[in-house]
């Protein structure tokens, strides 16, 4: 007889390597979520924090002032090294020898676009003079309505072409007295004269300045004030500089209005469809086929709904409306093109299956015994539904509605076809008669991200904005989803002990 050895057999039977592999699957999946959310939130949160201004002198004699955006390691082409002058080549080769063929470089945001025609400059470390880095005390960061940021040191304060002050402290004091954070209310003949790193001087009108500060003098609290004022601007202002500066207010507003309009349309119809399927329809093959079809439609790609929305709502329905009511404006379309109404209708169709399925689930979770009890007391079907079934199913229905909202807020592909645009001149709701403009195209956070990241000429400057916008969109969607999950858990808990 074989002598059983428990330890030996169970070691191999435990299948530890395979358990580890499946555990690795879970760990990697979790790591992916956490690192993605972390990456977006880290970048999004730090974007607006004022960075130090540095002044860099290169061995070539260039002087630049700006914010260092990031550091990078790269492998230089041999032709690039060969093109350097002796001193630089020596420094570069020294560094390459030490680092195994790699060189350090940094991306400096130099601003002053109208003078230099560039927003950013790469500076290799070997080009920097040994003691060429300093932190200028009076380096100013000036955010303007146009042309992007300006970096420089104050030279004079000018009122109507008269120089009023030349001391940096006095200039700064005068600036702060006259500019209270709102460029609209600044006196219109006041200028601040700023010298750039290469000695050029420029008069900047106070009315053009959104915000100015001397980052190297700020303490933590003052930085926090700049930071929060930027956040306020981000959330409430219109975009500037081809969307790469300023705020996302129109996009945020468009997203919220579109999502709410969609929810208002989808929830009643979705709930009624679910009620019909669950409470009224006679069971049978037909109903189970319909149910399968609805489940399927929840999996149909969103872009297909976008194609449908464009072809059916915009061109077919909108075109017909135009032909009947707005014939005088043709061939310029009024309703016959993308618009917020068509967008929300399209998304309503897209999310309808989600709402139907979740509502049905919630309805079926209401025990039949409760319905029977209600009927036995003489209630009609509608009374039963209204007073017994719906209240019980309410958390489930809310879950469906919130899930639909989250899906609608995060969906971009169909919106590209039915009305989201990179810059909408007017909001879909305003104080102009008739106050609601369902035919207007609108801005959307998701489309804003796509547009900033891919269609922007100055993508490096736009990148921080993309991250903050992404963070905003993700926060909205994650908040809605967490709410849905919470509702679902509450539902599960509530019914756990209450089955007859």
């Amino acid at each position, binding site marked *: 007889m074989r002598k059983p050895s428990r330890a030996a057999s169970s070691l191999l039977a435990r299948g530890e390597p395979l358990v580890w592999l499946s555990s690795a699957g879970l760990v990697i999946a979790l790591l992916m979520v956490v690192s993605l959310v972390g990456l977006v939130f880290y970048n999004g949160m730090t974007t607006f924090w004022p960075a130090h201004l540095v002044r860099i002198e290169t061995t070539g004699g260039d002087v630049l002032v700006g914010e260092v955006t990031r550091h990078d390691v790269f492998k230089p082409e041999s032709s690039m090294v060969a093109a350097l002058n002796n001193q630089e080549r020596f420094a570069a080769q020294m560094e390459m020898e030490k680092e195994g063929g790699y060189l350090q470089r940094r991306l400096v945001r130099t601003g002053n676009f109208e003078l230099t025609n560039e927003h950013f400059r790469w500076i290799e470390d070997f080009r920097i003079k040994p003691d060429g880095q300093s932190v200028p005390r009076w380096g100013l960061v000036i955010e303007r309505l146009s042309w992007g940021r300006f970096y420089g040191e104050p030279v004079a304060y000018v009122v109507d072409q008269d120089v009023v002050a030349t001391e940096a402290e006095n200039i700064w004091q005068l600036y702060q007295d006259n500019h209270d954070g709102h460029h609209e209310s600044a006196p219109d003949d006041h200028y601040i004269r700023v010298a750039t790193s290469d000695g050029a001087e420029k008069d900047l009108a106070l009315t053009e300045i959104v915000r100015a500060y001397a980052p190297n003098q700020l303490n933590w609290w003052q930085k926090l004030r700049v930071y929060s004022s930027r956040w306020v601007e981000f959330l409430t202002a219109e975009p500037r500089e081809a969307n790469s500066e300023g705020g996302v207010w129109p996009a945020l507003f468009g997203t919220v209005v579109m999502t709410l309009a969609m929810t208002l349309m989808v929830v009643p119809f979705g709930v009624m469809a679910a009620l019909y399927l669950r409470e009224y329809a006679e069971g049978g093959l037909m109903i189970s086929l319909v149910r399968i079809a609805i489940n399927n439609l929840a999996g149909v790609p969103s872009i297909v*709904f976008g*194609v449908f929305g464009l072809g059916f709502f915009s061109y077919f329905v909108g075109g017909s409306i135009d032909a009947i009511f707005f014939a005088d404006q043709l061939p310029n379309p009024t309703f016959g093109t993308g618009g917020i109404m068509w967008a929300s209708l399209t998304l309503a169709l897209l999310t309808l299956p989600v709402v139907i399925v979740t509502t049905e689930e919630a309805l079926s979770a209401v025990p039949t015994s409760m319905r029977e009890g209600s009927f036995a007391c003489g209630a009609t079907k509608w009374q039963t539904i209204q007073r017994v079934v719906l209240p019980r199913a309410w958390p489930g229905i809310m879950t469906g509605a919130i899930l639909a909202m989250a899906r609608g807020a995060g969906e971009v592909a169909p919106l590209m076809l039915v009305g989201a645009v990179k810059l909408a001149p007017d909001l879909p709701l305003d104080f102009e008669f008739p106050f609601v403009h369902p035919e207007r195209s609108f801005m959307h956070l998701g489309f804003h991200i796509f547009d900033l990241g891919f269609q922007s000429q100055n993508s490096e400057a736009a990148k921080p904005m993309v991250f903050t916008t992404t963070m905003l969109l993700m926060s909205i969607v994650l908040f809605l989803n967490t709410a849905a999950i919470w509702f679902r858990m509450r539902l599960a808990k509530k019914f756990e002990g209450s089955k007859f």
Partner: protein
Amino acid sequence: MATTKDSNKGRSFTGQVFQRKPRRSVMWRDDFARRVITLSGIGSIVAVSLVGLFLVWVVLPLFTPTGLEETDSRESVSYAGPVLYQAANNYGSLVWSLHQDGSVQVLDLDQGLLVDSHSVRSDMQPTAWAVADQGRRLAFGYGDGVMITATTEFVVDYLDGDDLSAEMVNLEPGQRLVHGRGLVEKTNEGQARLTTLQLQVDKPIKLSETPVADLAVTVTTNGLVVVALDSLGGLHDRRLTWKKNLLTGKLRIKSRGSDHTATELGTNPAHLPSYLALNDAGDMLLMVNEDGQTTMLRRDHEGLFKPVHHQDLLADEKRSITSLGFLAGQVSVVIGDDHGGLMVWLPVRKQGAGSPVMAPVHNLTHHQSSVTALAASGRSRTVAVGYADGTIDLMHVTSNRFIAETTMQEGPVTSLCIAPREDLLLASSSNGFATWKLDAAHPDISFESLLRPIWYEGYDEPAYVWQSSSASDTFEHKLSLVPLVFGTLKATFYSMLFGLPLALLAALYTSEFLHKKTRSKVKPVIEIMASLPSVVLGFLAALVVAPLIERVVSQTLAVLFLAPFFILVGSHLWQLMPRIWAPRLDPFRPVAVLVVLLVGGMIAWQLGPILEKLVFQGDVRAWLDGRLGTGTPGWFLLLLPGCSLLVGWLNINYGEGVLRSRGLAWNSFHLGLLDLARLLVISTLTVGLSWFLAWMLSSSGWDPRGGLLGTYVQRNALIVGFAMGFAVIPIIYSIAEDALSAVPDHLRAASLGAGATLWQTAIKVVVPPAVSGIFSAGMIGLGRAVGETMIVLMAAGNTPIMDMNVFNGFRTLSANLAVELPEAVQHSTHYRTLFLAALTLFVMTFILNTVAELVRLHFRRKSSRL
């Protein structure tokens, strides 16, 4: 029963009488609610199903046959002699015709009235003529060796005020009236539009002393190129440019060029070519004899025509060419012979040959009678063919589609014309003309052109091409869905390759090895991943991950391939731990895995450049470009996963038993050590095996580069696969986890009670009943991957190429819709083809989801029996 009920009626114990019937308002409300809910319920369901139906409705016209309806047929006595060439105006109301005597006559198509007549040269009849640019440019050759070029233009004028006669004012919109030398038509806006033909004749140019025998003309960016053949076989090549005199404002014609004698060209003057064909750029000339013998001439670097090639364009000796013409764009040549043969020839660059030769690309033969007339449409590759017996065929060349056929009553068709908007077909015979209303909305779409390789102009072989727009007017849509479907499948494949195993393993671990409390926290986190907007994933993949990975290709590859190995090593080290600790430490296994992953990842990262030096001769990307080394390392990487699975399987089935029986006497620590040694041995074996196989493959001449591997492009399938993982993993995970958790606990309890380990229970007891649920999870994940838009739009590079290469981009159906649909003109062929792409996506996902749903229902029924 009935009696008791009756006897109880109206009586009650307390003396109070209850109303047995509900109030009317309650009943009314109930009824109302029922109606409203039924109506809107069915309405919403119908509305959703409308999506598919609407797509079909938009797509259908692509495949409906073209209508050809005869509108007019009359004998025209006003024509002087047979018609050589005709061209209609944009509105299909006027047509001008060119006649043997060199006159240009303008005819009103409503009534067949002669409206206007022009003559290019009054003293002589032309001996040769040629047209270009859909009849807008003409060239005539004469018996005295003179060549005259002319320009025709339909001039449109809107009449108002004094010019309007009472008759014109009373016209209904759409009605027409002959007015002077033109035709007045009332537009829908109520304006009177006068169309007249303007013929502008240029100064004559003397070419030779002998009569001009044949002519060819083409419009280039600078002016005209005219090639003339005189009766002695001499070739006269002229480039005409127009200069505006700055002082007088007059246009002056400037002519440059060269003359070649027949001997220079090596042609036989006694056997002159009957057709000249000059291509769109004016740098290739075909001299075609009636028997098909053809000389191809090309301009050399000095701009002089030189014969480069002779070939026979007719296979059959007995046949002779009766008709020759260009398709729009002047690249494809259509040749018709006296037996009804109709071939389309294209200049094709054969491999190894320097200059292109003509190749027969499309055979359109459809009829027995001699081909007498050809006319190409100006906006598509549609061609109308007239035969000697009066038959007229209409076909689309590129898609090989026969569109329609009609007949003309009287005799051979001498001339044909397709109106510029492709809405009218015009035919002339020797003594009359006839018109047909044409509805050729989408002639270029057929199942063949959508799904089969098509030989397009400018291509050297049939190809699958998606190219929907270009700057050129004569450009042809190339709408093959195959590259897009290929892109979709490629994206799906790589995202599933990455996402499916991860998601299933994670689901298994969550449901079988995690504590209930941890599980309830982990699941929502992964479900949150499902809600991440795909635009965010796309943005991060394209702007953060792709540029990063591009710089660290070797490190990435090292991490990808070494991570599983480190996990296995970690698990074997974990086994060495005393068994008694296990119950306490098992919940921390994921933490250990995380540590091993991080440490292993860092080691692999450091090893990356070293391995790159060892395996890829120091530069992966140069190797991928094909600049370095042999195919062995590539095969090695490709074969490694397969080999490790094979070796692992062999090991479990054959090695494990040996080890178990031998290891009975060992204690668990020593057995663990032995197991670790075994791991190292089989890893070495795996590496050796795959290197050997790779070496075999590459030494037998196979190189993975150009196939599965190739030049590294920043936005590629690897990046997309990774980013799509975020979209696919949570869906698969969540459904698969549900399926596993739904397996009743008593099965687990029984298995564990009988002495099985957790792993044995999971694999042998829990997974089998849940397999159909897991399968449906995979299908639904597949459906999501197929339709995902934003990630591929941003991270896949969006070039519609068919390249298997992992490191190259692609374009999917969905991204294509997002890119092109906003620009597509409503109801155009392009628009409808895009709807067809959407329908394809719809059907693909619908099938996948239906299968998943059916499997899931089956699973539910099965598991309820457990």
